[in-house]
């Protein structure tokens, strides 16, 4: 754990007690069982926003807390432990980042303020395939008078069913441009998807959607600069959530090794299991270092922030993969049952791994940055 300021420690502790008391795994299970549309309740999101967490990276001038990504990471780690369903990733992390990085004064005034207050949910609509591939864009934006017309489809948009607006990447005359598109615009269609981990997801279609000139985010044809920087933040941020999820999965498993008896002794006395537990712990510690370093590098605008974000996402993906597999295996039969939480953790793990690029995607990105 990084050395924290007093303010950060307070926020972390608040996030921990809220997650454990008001948003335990049982709450997530209930949402799943009740098939709550979008995966979470708007009033929960409002409650989270009232505690200030929706606006952690939003500057104070726009109603936020202006504390940065290391701090947002602390909250995500705690909510990740209990699989809290909310718009923290789609909105507080991703949409807010895109607007902080590329938004006009007007866009910030309107949307960052609403993000911070919990009155707007936004999401990145950037992928067109089932694999994360943000640089391949077919959705087209053509000039139409002063504004634009959008045609095409985006897939697997996080919280896409609940979002009030999207940050959409589109192909323009000589590059990629980002647009802020209202979800209720004429021509926007939604196909809500039911995912294994119950996280809200939708395919969004754009049929001749009219967008005003003022809704361009960043520069025309040069949207990749803002998009890539946003995805660095997205990758490091979701890695922090994954760190919480993986740590909790590990601790649940460790507790089980201390209570389950077979052959007349606790299974935690078996060296075969002790060593596997030890290796998982080493892996978690190494991955924690990467997550913390990536978030700090983003806050400090360090030149290697992008490589560190990929390092964090790739390693955290491998770690959570291992830990959740071992969680099922070490629990034995009970880990295969729906009544146990292991299934919830392994499903969330795979989903988080695939979001914003898996280990393979980020390894390739890291290797390119290193010149091999």
């Amino acid at each position, binding site marked *: *754990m*990084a*050395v924290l300021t007093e303010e950060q420690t307070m926020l972390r502790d608040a996030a921990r007690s809220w997650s454990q008391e008001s948003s335990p795994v049982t709450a997530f299970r209930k949402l799943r069982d009740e098939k709550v549309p979008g995966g979470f309740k708007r009033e929960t999101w409002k409650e989270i926003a009232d505690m200030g967490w929706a606006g952690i990276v939003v500057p104070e001038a726009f109603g936020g807390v202006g504390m940065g990504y290391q701090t947002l990471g602390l909250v995500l780690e705690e909510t990740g432990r209990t699989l809290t369903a909310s718009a923290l990733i789609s909105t507080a992390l991703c949409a807010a980042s895109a607007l902080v990085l590329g938004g006009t004064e007007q866009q910030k005034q309107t949307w960052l303020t609403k993000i911070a207050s919990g009155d707007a949910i936004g999401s990145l609509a950037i992928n067109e395939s089932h694999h994360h591939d943000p640089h391949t864009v077919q959705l087209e934006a053509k000039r139409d008078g002063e504004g634009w017309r959008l045609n095409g489809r985006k897939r697997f948009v996080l919280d896409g069913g609940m979002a009030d607006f999207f940050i959409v990447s589109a192909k323009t005359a000589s590059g990629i441009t980002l647009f802020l598109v209202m979800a209720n615009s004429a021509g926007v269609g939604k196909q809500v998807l039911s995912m294994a981990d119950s996280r809200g997801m939708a395919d969004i279609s754009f049929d001749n959607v009219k967008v005003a000139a003022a809704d361009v985010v960043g520069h025309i044809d040069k949207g990749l600069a803002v998009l890539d920087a946003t995805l660095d933040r997205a990758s490091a941020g979701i890695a922090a959530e994954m760190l919480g999820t993986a740590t909790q999965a590990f601790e649940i498993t*460790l507790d089980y*090794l*201390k209570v389950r008896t077979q052959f007349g002794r*606790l299974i*935690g*006395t078996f*060296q075969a*299991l*002790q*060593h596997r*537990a*030890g*290796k998982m*712990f*080493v892996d978690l*510690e*190494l*991955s*924690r*270092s*990467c997550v*913390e*370093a990536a978030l700090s590098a983003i806050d400090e605008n360090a030149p290697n922030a992008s490589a560190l974000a990929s*390092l964090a996402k*790739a*390693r955290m993906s491998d770690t959570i993969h291992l830990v959740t597999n071992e969680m099922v295996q070490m629990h034995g039969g009970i880990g295969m049952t729906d009544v146990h939480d292991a299934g919830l953790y392994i499903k969330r793990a795979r989903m988080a791994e695939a979001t914003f690029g898996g280990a*393979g995607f980020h*390894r*390739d990105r*890291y*290797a*390119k940055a*290193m*010149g*091999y």
Partner: protein
Amino acid sequence: MTDLTTFRNEARAWLEENCPASMRTPMTEADRPWGGRNFKPSHPDVKVWMDRMVAKGWTVPTWPKEYGGAGLSSDESRVLQQEMARINARPPVVSFGIWMFGPVLMEYGNEEQKRRFLPQIARGEIRWCQGYSEPGAGSDLAGLQTKCEDKGDHYLINGQKVWTSYADKADWIFCLVRTDTSKKQGGISFVVFDMQTAGVEARPIKLISGSSPFCETFFTDVKVPKDQLIGQVNGGWEIAKRLLQYERQNISSGGFGGGTEVEDFALRYVGLKDGKLADADFRTRLTIHKMEAHAFDLTVRRSQAEAKGGKDVGPTTSIIKYAVAKMNQERRELGIEAMGMAGLGWDGPGFEQDALDETRQWLRAKGNSIEGGTSEINLNVLSKRVLNLPE
């Protein structure tokens, strides 16, 4: 902050003035400045550099001045390290005295012992070796049997050590001995003595890498003065464990680095195609390894930051020792694999020197998960002391 900046400027200026140009080049195994009575520097500048740093107290910058150090704060010491790294300055002295024995002597020795041994270590005058493992006591170190009898005015030592690093070149040994056979851990004492004492014999062991850094060391009726027992009689196990922490810490911070970086071998011997290493499978495994190494560096830094923040990082040493061994072994395997047949040369013409070194390093690295506590022992320590899994 200003004080630290002043210190940095002074250190930088002094190093610029005093570190010979030849001491700012990569160091081979033969260049290592071990010091000691029979020290033969590979170059006259090695001695010049050592002497200048000794005079500054900068061979052991954080030790108190009365023991040969400079009494620097940990922040100042870090700045000094950064400034040395900036000009690629070689370490002025490398020694088991500085890494391992000095720190535990500071903690467990009496004043007379500290004044006697620490300044010699700081000045690189005495080269120390470590008498720990025995033929029957490797991972089960506390099972050691080397006998130490109280003969009134002296101790009498009989037994055998093994894997004693550089025992054939060392001047003194710090050694674990059995002073009580009725208790295992509670019957061990920590003594030090001169390797020239009658009855001490060291025989080098040839390894698979072709080199002989380790010895079998025999003690036959070795007489040791009583003031050379450190701490309490039968109280040596605590000191032994603390010293192992320093050993693991040192292995971890210095790593098993050295030599050509694995990605440089890959670029030279595999080559790029369309901007990526031509062998896709190798590229993936190399990248996984490099990311692991990066994660490891960040973890060492985090652990140092947390130690400064007052957190007990003792348990971290097992994690770090386990991880660094695995990492270096992977690095060396990838190194020779990148070179194909050129990575398997033994000596002579037809091979690049750094490729020949890598072949030896690959084999030497197999010891990383054995020495200083095997990886399995480190996982045991981790699962019991950190994860609190039941016995």
